[in-house]
């Protein structure tokens, strides 16, 4: 502006030149098809020329007449709104552009007045003060307009595509060792969160058509050095809007103490909400907020990232703290799946978070979330280990009635059948503990020849868990006094495990070799059962002196009686036993039948002379029928059934 100062002509002769230039500028300014920039230049030039004129005038005592005139004109334009209760931007485009022009003009006048040295010129000083006052009035007004605009156009409604968190899977393992029926396990295993991923849904937090208005205010406020006021007002409204959106997601405002004391059931719900909120807040709201900040403030240097951070920070801290509270809590086995969900959610978002907060000021946020991700990874590992420990250390004091499928088997198998959904994550997190476990599971699958799916860390961990389960089941089987029931129990449970593996995503991780081996195992128990229960019974029917054609009547009677007593004993016992799987039950009955009925029929056939109703308590057909009552889990005594059969 010094050039401008030196350019002020010294004598009247030059005044004409200035006047001429002024006219040309004014004439040019009336041209309709001028670009904005050019028009601005002309306005500035116009102002300068007026000042030069007034400066020369002032020397002649006339003062800054023209400047004052112009100031008066814009003053009217600006002051008139002071008494008006209607917002300018609600009034119409003409009013808006008039107002903005007026503010521009004030700014131009101020710049020009400042450009002149303050040669103790009282008039100039006074005009500058008046202009500054006017500018303050306008800026204050614009701030108010901005807040009004932002509040009025805050998109209140939730975006419609957003499924509510309640539609998410909410089936949880609420107790640690419970039997779950397969249905609910199936339901729980459908990871719906995978399918309704919200992706990058950038929404208009403020309607598209309002953006240029906000920008126009930003532009003029920044040009007048009122950028700070703009930012504070903008941050204030947007921050509150984000917090409102966050409140709608129903995140409980929980302290760490609250979280650590929470019952698992409510905690699980909160964890679910967190997962949901993280996705919505980062993918939808923060992405959109970032875009809004860039749109509005992109032209003004780094303020956009500063404002974005200020807007986002408290909401982010809230999410962060819940995550921290979860990561530090005791890692009970039932938390494993939720923790995996949380881990996967954050792992999925972490790149977005890095991108959103890529500037220096955001390093704090980036760092904290990376730390949290590590913390959650540790929690997953810890929960996985406590799960493993729980599987092997679960102690029963009493034998499980009926020898059926133990709740622990159900719990473990249903639980791990959900792991394949998380296989890539689990493989990643269990990698470093891989070698320990691989050596524990001395199965060929873990060897170098195994296929990829059976040799991955998760597969080895899964097999180590089932082998812990197996040894625990062996321990539990020892609680039965009856050896036959021990075998039934193990047969049932091993069969259950095999079925679960075969019928689920677990299969590739266990491999055919495992299935074959375990089929053989439960079949072995099946055979052992038959041997333990029936060998002695069948032995009673055995011919003592092979060679002689038939027994004496008394010997026959004795054998018949012995068989009946033994059979009835078995019947009384084993009708209360349980084989839940119908196929397995059927198979066992058939093979028992083959063995026992066959022996009985042969025995009776060999002694046709003695066969009469008196000494034969049970006919072959009776035995065949009665065998069908075994393993139904409802104790019967033979006397009842006999009576029933007779009547």
């Amino acid at each position, binding site marked *: 502006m010094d050039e401008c100062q030196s350019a002020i002509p010294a004598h009247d002769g030059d005044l004409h030149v200035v006047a001429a230039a002024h006219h040309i500028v004014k004439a040019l300014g009336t041209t309709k098809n001028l670009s904005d920039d050019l028009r601005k230049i002309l306005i500035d030039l116009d102002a300068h020329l007026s000042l030069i004129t007034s400066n020369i005038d002032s020397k002649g005592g006339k003062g800054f007449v023209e400047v004052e005139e112009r100031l008066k004109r814009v003053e009217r334009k600006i002051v008139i709104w002071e008494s008006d209760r*209607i917002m300018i931007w609600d009034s119409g485009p003409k009013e808006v552009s008039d107002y903005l022009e007026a503010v521009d003009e004030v700014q131009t006048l101020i710049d020009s007045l400042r450009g002149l040295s303050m040669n103790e010129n009282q008039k100039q000083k006074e005009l500058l003060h008046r202009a500054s006052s006017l500018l303050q009035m306008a800026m204050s007004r614009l701030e108010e307009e901005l807040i*009004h605009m932002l509040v009025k156009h805050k998109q209140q409604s939730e975006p419609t595509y957003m499924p509510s968190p309640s539609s998410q899977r909410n089936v949880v393992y609420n107790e640690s060792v419970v039997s779950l029926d397969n249905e609910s396990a199936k339901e729980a295993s459908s990871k719906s969160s995978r399918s309704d991923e919200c992706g990058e849904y950038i929404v208009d937090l403020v309607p598209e058509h309002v953006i240029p208005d906000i920008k126009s205010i930003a532009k003029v406020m920044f040009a007048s050095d009122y950028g700070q006021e703009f930012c504070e007002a903008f941050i204030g409204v947007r921050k509150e809007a984000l917090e409102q959106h966050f409140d709608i997601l129903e995140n409980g405002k929980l302290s*760490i103490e609250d979280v650590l004391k929470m019952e698992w059931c409510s905690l699980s719900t909160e964890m679910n909400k967190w997962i949901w909120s993280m996705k919505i807040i980062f993918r939808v709201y923060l992405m959109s907020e970032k875009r809004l900040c860039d749109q509005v403030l992109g032209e003004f240097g780094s303020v956009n990232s500063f404002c974005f951070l200020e807007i986002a920070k*408290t909401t982010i801290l809230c999410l962060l703290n819940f995550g921290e509270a979860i990561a530090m809590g005791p890692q009970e086995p039932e938390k494993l799946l939720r923790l995996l969900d949380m881990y996967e959610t954050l792992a999925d978002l972490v790149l977005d978070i890095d991108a959103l907060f890529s500037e220096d000021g955001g390093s704090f946020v980036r760092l904290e979330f990376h730390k949290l991700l590590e913390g959650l990874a540790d929690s997953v590992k810890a929960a996985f280990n406590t799960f493993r420990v729980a599987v092997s250390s679960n102690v029963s004091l009493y034998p499980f009635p009926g020898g059926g499928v133990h709740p622990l088997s159900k719990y473990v198998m249903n639980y791990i059948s959900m792991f394949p959904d998380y296989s890539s994550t689990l493989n990643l997190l269990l990698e470093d503990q891989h070698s320990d476990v691989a050596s524990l599971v001395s199965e060929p699958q873990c060897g170098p020849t195994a296929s990829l799916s059976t040799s991955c860390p998760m597969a080895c961990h899964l097999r180590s868990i089932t082998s812990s389960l197996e040894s625990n089941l062996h321990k539990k089987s020892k609680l039965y006094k009856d050896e036959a029931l021990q075998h039934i129990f193990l047969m049932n449970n091993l069969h259950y495990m095999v079925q679960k593996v075969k019928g689920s995503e677990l299969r590739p991780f266990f491999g055919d070799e495992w299935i074959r081996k375990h089929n053989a195992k439960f079949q072995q128990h099946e055979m052992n059962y038959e041997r333990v229960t029936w060998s002695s019974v069948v032995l009673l029917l055995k011919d003592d002196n092979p060679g002689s054609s038939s027994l004496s009547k008394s010997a026959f009677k004795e054998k018949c009686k012995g068989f009946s007593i033994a059979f009835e004993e078995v019947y009384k016992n084993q009708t209360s036993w349980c084989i839940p799987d119908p196929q397995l039950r059927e198979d066992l009955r058939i093979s028992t039948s083959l063995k026992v009925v066959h022996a009985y029929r042969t025995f009776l056939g060999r002694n046709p002379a003695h066969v009469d109703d008196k000494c034969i308590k049970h006919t072959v057909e009776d035995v065949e029928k009665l065998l069908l009552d075994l393993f139904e889990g409802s104790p019967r005594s033979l006397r009842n059934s006999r009576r029933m059969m007779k009547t």
Partner: protein
Amino acid sequence: MPATDYQASFLGRISIRRNQVIAMDGNHEQELQDLELFSKHVSERFAELLSSPDDVPFDALLSISWLRKLLDFFLCCEAEFKGILMMGNDPSQISKPPLDRLIPEFLDRSVKALDVCNAVTNGLESVRHYQKLAEIVVSALEQKPIGDGQSRRAKKALTSLISAMNVDDKECSAAKATERSWSFSRRGVSSKDRVPEHFRSVSNQVAKNWSAAKQIQAMTNNLVPPRGAEGSGLASPVYTMSVIMVFVMWALVAAIPCQERNGLSAIHFPAPKQLNWAQSIIGLHEKIGEEWKKKEKKGTAGLLDEMQKMEKLGNILMDFTDSFQFHGDITDQKAEEAAAHAAELAETCRRMEEGLLPLQMQIREVFHRIVKTRTELLNALDQVGKSSPPLL
């Protein structure tokens, strides 16, 4: 004093000790030495904090740099404490009386401290907001000559600043986040189609009934100096560290806007004066407590030195802008005074700009450290075979 100095020498000591432990039989002696050294360091550090000169603005009591030093010392003490507790030759000690009771209580206190850390981190966001408003005041008054426009601009920002500080305080005690509106619209009328200008304030991160003062009060539960034979064992560092933790959290809450601080000055520290290391802490507690009582009557957003300065300068400059408005102009002398005050305010803003973010990061570091120690202690308890679940 940088934290790393302490840590380096400390870690060095530990590694030497580890080797010694195997060779040496006189472990108990070593332990006694460690305990002595620990309380010596504690008393030295807090003595340094107590002797902070009030006249040097940089290190004044409860200034940002003072708080950072406090947190540094906390981290040092914490590292040393953990060393004593965990590196001991007999890890099973922590599961035996009296530690089997003291450690869970300590962990309980730790969790409460974490919530205080979060509340304070959140409160610092408000302080940042004050800083931004004060910066507007500075930008307005830095211009020369100061005219009506500048004065009005400053006044507007000052009004926001002063009411923000007051609202935060009231909100903190009333815990009621109503629609925060700045009642004065420019025309003094609030019409329906106009939105009141508004400003930000502490947003509640936790339930509305959460109270920082109660939280700290609860941290002092069961906090009694070890008696008799206990005094010479590990019970004493647990007690010392607990007192340090309570004090640090208490000081942070006194300094920085925080949810619900009624009764903060009434919190009693059960630290007997005859304990050498406790004297400086007691001294600091008394000093800050008196400050708090003075301010409590007037209402304050916090005792943070920079905030108090900001409040004082804010009020002076508010008077200045008022008189400017009234007289229409000012004398040169008044203008000079105002410029000096504005410069002082600018300096305060600069210190906030430099210090607030690092302070926030440091509180976060304290947070993570407490979490880490808690996890390690829980694991240690677990390994010792204590099957009963931790209190928290």
